[in-house]
């Protein structure tokens, strides 16, 4: 059995809209923040793993090194839709776990622009499929997953909307979130309908952003000092195995359940041991189904679970205390590492006003449409 792997430094920039900056500039800023957090320099890094979606053919990882120091180390540019950052983190983790390296850097960066994600699906004939063959837009796909939950368990639009109330509230405590605005239930429910039951305030915010982590072997972590180190207890990545409707309605549930099961098994823990969760609330409907997918509550209980307040800061298992993708923002390639930053910050006891008291174990979850699901379990040292 190989040795433990640690996060020694981790940070993110405040998410926002930076149309006049470059993607490598955004990534470089987070890389330097994470290196500073670890008290290390780029010369100490033995490899770089970069997560990005929109510019992935442009050697973003190498361009980051051109901005902060060209040491000639191997660079791997990873793309896995919304799981790209988590995939880069996992590749970095695996490289250290394998014994190949002692210190590596994982960076996620994205420059998004505004508007709906997806495409109208016009073929050679120039006829858009959107509207003709249903919708392939993200708000509708995740709305259909929510309506599937409604069908099975009677979940109501109010249940989904409460997720947005909670996450927007949480973001008022996070200075690095895109927005810090309270959104009462009537505001969420009354906002412009995008794809029923998801209103505009139940859709994640398209922002630009970056985050980075320095990952170390146990040997190196001991050598450098474990004071603020966070242990990576488990890393799991899945794709979509065959399920009945996956090819028609992307099955976001099964790949999440698979990843969660693998991660809990690897960590030797269960969902009841987790103190906080950053999960993929790309839409309010998604957070509800992931409560059950991650085992935070029983089957069909997600509506009652949000009603109970269990996932609010101060509740049984706070979820998305960062504000989540709904309010912190969702720069695709950066999201997975920003989640690691959030959980690590709580485990370090450095989360300030939104600190989850006594946090010892935290879980991160991202889901890339296609599908790629990554779950990581982090532990206070």
């Amino acid at each position: 059995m190989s040795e433990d792997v640690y996060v020694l430094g981790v940070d993110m920039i405040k998410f926002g809209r930076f149309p006049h900056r470059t993607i490598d500039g955004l990534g470089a800023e987070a890389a330097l923040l994470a290196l500073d957090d670890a008290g290390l320099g780029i010369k100490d890094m033995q490899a770089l793993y970069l997560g990005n979606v929109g510019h992935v053919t442009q050697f973003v990882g190498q361009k980051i090194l051109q901005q902060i120091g060209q040491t000639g180390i191997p660079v791997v540019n990873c793309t896995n839709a919304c799981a790209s950052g988590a995939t880069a983190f996992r590749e970095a983790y695996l490289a250290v776990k394998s014994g190949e390296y002692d210190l590596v850097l994982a960076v996620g960066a994205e420059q998004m622009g505004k508007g709906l994600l997806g495409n109208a699906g016009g073929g050679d004939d120039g006829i858009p499929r959107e509207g003709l063959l249903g919708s392939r837009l993200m708000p509708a796909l995740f709305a259909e997953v929510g309506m599937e939950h409604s069908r099975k368990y009677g979940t109501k639009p109010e249940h989904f909307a409460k997720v947005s109330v909670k996450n927007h509230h949480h973001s008022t405590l996070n200075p690095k979130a895109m927005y810090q605005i309270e959104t009462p239930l009537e505001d969420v429910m009354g906002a412009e309908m995008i794809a029923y039951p998801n209103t505009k305030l139940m859709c994640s915010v398209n922002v630009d952003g970056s985050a980075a982590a320095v990952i170390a072997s146990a040997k190196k972590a001991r050598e450098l000092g474990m004071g603020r180190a966070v242990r990576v207890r488990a890393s799991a990545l899945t794709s979509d195995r065959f399920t009945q409707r996956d090819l028609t309605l992307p099955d976001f549930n099964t790949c999440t359940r698979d990843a969660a099961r693998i991660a809990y098994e690897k960590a030797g823990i269960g969902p009841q041991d987790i103190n906080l969760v950053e999960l993929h609330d790309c839409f309010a409907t998604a957070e509800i189904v992931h409560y059950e997918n991650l085992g935070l509550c029983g089957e069909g209980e997600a509506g009652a679970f949000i009603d109970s307040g269990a996932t609010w800061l101060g509740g049984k298992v706070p979820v998305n205390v960062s504000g989540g993708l709904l309010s912190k923002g969702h720069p695709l390639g950066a999201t997975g590492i920003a989640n690691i930053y959030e959980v690590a910050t709580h485990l370090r006891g450095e989360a300030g006003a939104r600190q989850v008291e006594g946090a010892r174990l935290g879980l991160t979850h991202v889901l890339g449409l296609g599908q790629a699901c990554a779950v990581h379990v982090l532990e206070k040292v």
Partner: protein
Amino acid sequence: MSDTALANPPTIVPFLKFGADGAPYLEGQQCADCGEIYTTERMACSKCFSRKPFKAVRLPTTGELYTFSIVHRSYPGIKVPFVSATVDLDGACSLKGTLIDVEPDPEHVKTGMKVEVVFRELEHKNKEGRTYVSYFFVPKKG
């Protein structure tokens, strides 16, 4: 549009076919081993990995609305609202499409409702001036 008088017009998906009588239908590809049905071609069965040649089968024209969303915001030029639907075809596969001939609101669209597959001409024409045909879902009558 009569279901019988089509001289094989252009279609919006490759699995929309026309019978010898000119009537449109949807064609699935059925795994020779496990029986799973797909609407797109593949090298082997996604479910059981069988590489036996797939068998072309006519998809049923009735089914049940498994889940849906009512889309109010889409790309410029796309008419909204519309109902994005995932339908389980009776005894076959599930199929994505647009549910029409119903008020696009949650009072009228319900999961579990019975639907039928219909074929309609679109406003789009190809270079030869021929009108495209696509499939839609409508609430089942009766």
